[in-house]
């Protein structure tokens, strides 16, 4: 089973999904990330899916779950790098991921988190 590394940059955790993940790896990632948000006190989570060729309902649910879970642990989540074909497919599949914030790339994702932190909640 692949395990996705979680990188820490200041108070942001960065996950870059580089391989076609098995469902178990997806579930493991959710748990690893929740632990890491708490142990590091991270205020932001960025999930980079630039290399992800498809997002099916399982991965889509993971993205939504991570966003909800992080919010409960006082961290904001941004999904970055979604491919156009993936976005089109997700909408047709019926998953619009309304609760998940997105940015076009890592740089814009970091800027979005900075903005969120400078604004009172």
């Amino acid at each position, binding site marked *: 089973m692949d395990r996705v590394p979680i990188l820490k940059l200041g108070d942001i955790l960065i996950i870059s999904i580089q391989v*076609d*993940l*098995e*469902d*178990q790896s997806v579930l493991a990632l959710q748990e690893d990330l929740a632990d890491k948000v708490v142990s590091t006190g991270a205020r932001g989570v960025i999930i980079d899916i630039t290399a992800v*060729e*498809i*997002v*099916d*309902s*399982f991965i*889509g*649910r993971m993205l939504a779950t991570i966003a909800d879970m992080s919010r409960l642990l006082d961290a904001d989540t941004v999904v970055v790098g979604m*491919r*156009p*074909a*993936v976005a*089109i*497919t997700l909408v*047709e*599949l*019926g*998953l619009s991921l309304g609760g998940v914030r997105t940015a076009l790339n890592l740089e814009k994702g970091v800027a979005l988190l900075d903005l969120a932190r400078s604004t009172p909640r």
Partner: protein
Amino acid sequence: MTGGGQLPIASNADIVMVRQRVRTAAVESGFSLIDQTKVVTAASELARNALVYAGGGQVSIEIIDNTPRRGLRLEFRDEGPGIPDIAQALTDGWTTGGGLGLGLSGSRRLVDEFDLVSVPGEGTTVTVTKWAR
């Protein structure tokens, strides 16, 4: 026909393999990137359904080359409990497996032809076809 053939669906690793083989076949069929993405996503949903609801099954991948029309036909077969109410199972949001309820209904929207035959106690066969544009 390198992209065609039969694959077992018995583990999570097999779902990944199905995605990869369907991708290869979709490229071979001349699909656009968007259509590749759609058919691979549908295949991933249907393979997971076979694993989660029936404990496994198999898929046959067939490249259709009836000039001028090219396409891909995928047949997912399982010998699971079957689906008692197909109309309900095809409704967005309906699930008995704790998922989002988009596997069947969503994958139907991603392909051009969708056929579901299910006999309670004997199993389910889902056949989908997508044409290259």
